[in-house]
């Protein structure tokens, strides 16, 4: 099946940071949340994919086409909202959209106007006069107006106040309801993506530590509290383990395995609690090296 995008052994090196080797892909119609702390390489991954940065090693493909910078047809399938929103600053939003529309045969003015209305975006204002939130909205309108098959969103809500962020996410959620688009959404704000994502990939220091379906993570991860007098035992499938006297608290990435083991150990007052995606992400990124790929 044709992938929305593929990374094959992609490496991008800077003097003090190396991204990759990255080997992953995205199925059409899937929303992949790309989670990682600042400086983990999320934006660099996006930059490589959209052609703003050249990787030294490896190959990327978008809908089966190689990402050749001199055969740019593959970019027609991409809608990109970057970490920096660049426009002709002296032009109005409308004029900027008109400029961009020339490059995309599938561009719909009607769709652009509808989106701008939904975003409550003043298209007559010059780009340099737009607030941070409105700049993001203008980028989103530009990225969505040609109905791309692959949407790349690089921390689109970063720097926005909570009200505007919620507003942008609401509209984005509505727009993405059709389920036809593949979306690659990078963020370090988990609450943004937990609503939208089908799958999550966790990036740390340039490496993908874990990729899993969101539902799988929610289903498998548990915070488990129990009492056990001994302390000379080791539990499998745990990301962390705290102990105070006979009280233990572990975070398990496969609660069935951990609970079974606790039963065998004769642990008392065993209680398992569901974890939010935020809590799971923190555990994965804190102890990424110990978490098995589920």
């Amino acid at each position, binding site marked *: 099946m044709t992938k929305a995008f593929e990374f094959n052994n992609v490496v991008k090196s800077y003097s003090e940071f190396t991204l990759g080797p990255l080997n992953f892909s995205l199925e059409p119609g899937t929303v992949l949340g790309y989670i990682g702390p600042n400086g983990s390489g999320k934006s660099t991954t996006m930059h490589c994919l959209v052609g*703003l*940065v050249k990787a030294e090693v490896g190959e990327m493909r978008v809908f089966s086409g190689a990402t050749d910078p*001199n055969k*740019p047809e593959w970019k027609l399938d991409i809608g990109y909202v*970057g970490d920096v929103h660049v426009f002709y600053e002296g032009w109005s939003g409308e004029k900027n959209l008109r*400029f961009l529309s020339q490059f995309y045969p599938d561009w719909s003015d009607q769709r652009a106007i509808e989106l701008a209305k939904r975003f409550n975006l003043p298209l007559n204002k010059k780009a340099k006069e737009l607030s941070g939130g409105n700049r993001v909205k203008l980028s989103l309108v530009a990225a969505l107006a040609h109905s791309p098959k692959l949407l790349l969103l690089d921390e689109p809500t970063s720097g926005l106040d909570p009200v505007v962020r919620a507003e942008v996410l609401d509209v984005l959620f509505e727009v993405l309801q059709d389920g036809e688009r593949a979306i690659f959404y990078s963020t370090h704000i988990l609450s943004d993506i937990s609503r939208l994502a089908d799958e999550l990939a966790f990036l740390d220091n340039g490496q993908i530590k874990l990729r899993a379906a969101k539902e799988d993570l929610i289903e498998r991860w548990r915070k488990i509290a129990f009492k056990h007098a001994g302390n000379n035992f080791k539990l499998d499938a745990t990301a962390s383990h705290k102990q105070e006297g006979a009280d233990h608290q572990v975070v398990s990435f496969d609660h069935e395995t951990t609970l079974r083991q606790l039963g065998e150990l004769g642990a008392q007052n065993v209680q398992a609690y569901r974890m939010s995606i935020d809590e799971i992400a923190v555990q994965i990124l804190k102890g990424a090296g110990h978490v098995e790929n589920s």
Partner: protein
Amino acid sequence: MWKILDAEIRYHRSAVIAAFAVGALFVMFMALSGMVKSDDSITATSLMSTVMGLYIYLLIHVGGHQDQEKRDRLNAALPISIKQLGIVRWALLILLQSGFAALSLVGVIAANKFNLESLFQLISSNAFLFLIVALIAIYQELGHFGTRAYRRIFFELLALFLFLIAWLILAGHIITFLRSIFEPYMTPQGAAIYTLLAIGLFFLNVIIFARRRSYLS
């Protein structure tokens, strides 16, 4: 790729019109006032310095906006080939420079001093100006290679050139050297050599742009 050129012209329309209007007025003023006939050297110097000044003003204006507004970043994400983008970045400058060259030509014709020598001089001086702009641009492009090695080579070549100039000054050969550079200005061979050098640097710049490792700024 002409869509980008068209956008750039429209975006900088006011500044371009203003600069050309000032230039045209200056040429008209000189032609009408009779200055052209009183002292040719003053006329030529005034005309050239005005045209150069206006061109430099436009270069700073256009280049400043392109850098500040991260135009490379905007355009590199569009479905347009990087080589075409490398060419079109120069198209506006070439267009502007051609416009000013035409203005200079009108000035020379208005001064009743048009001959083949002045035409070759115009071609050579425009090519020379382009060479300088292209060298500055190449230096900037090399900053996007993600390594300082290329810029170091550029600096080493520049240092070598300055050392050569210093040596020529000390040895008393600088006048001969400058003459050897500027004497061919008015000859067809000189015009051809400068033009070929300018074209060579133009393509070198396009190649360097296409091989940049980053288009983020």
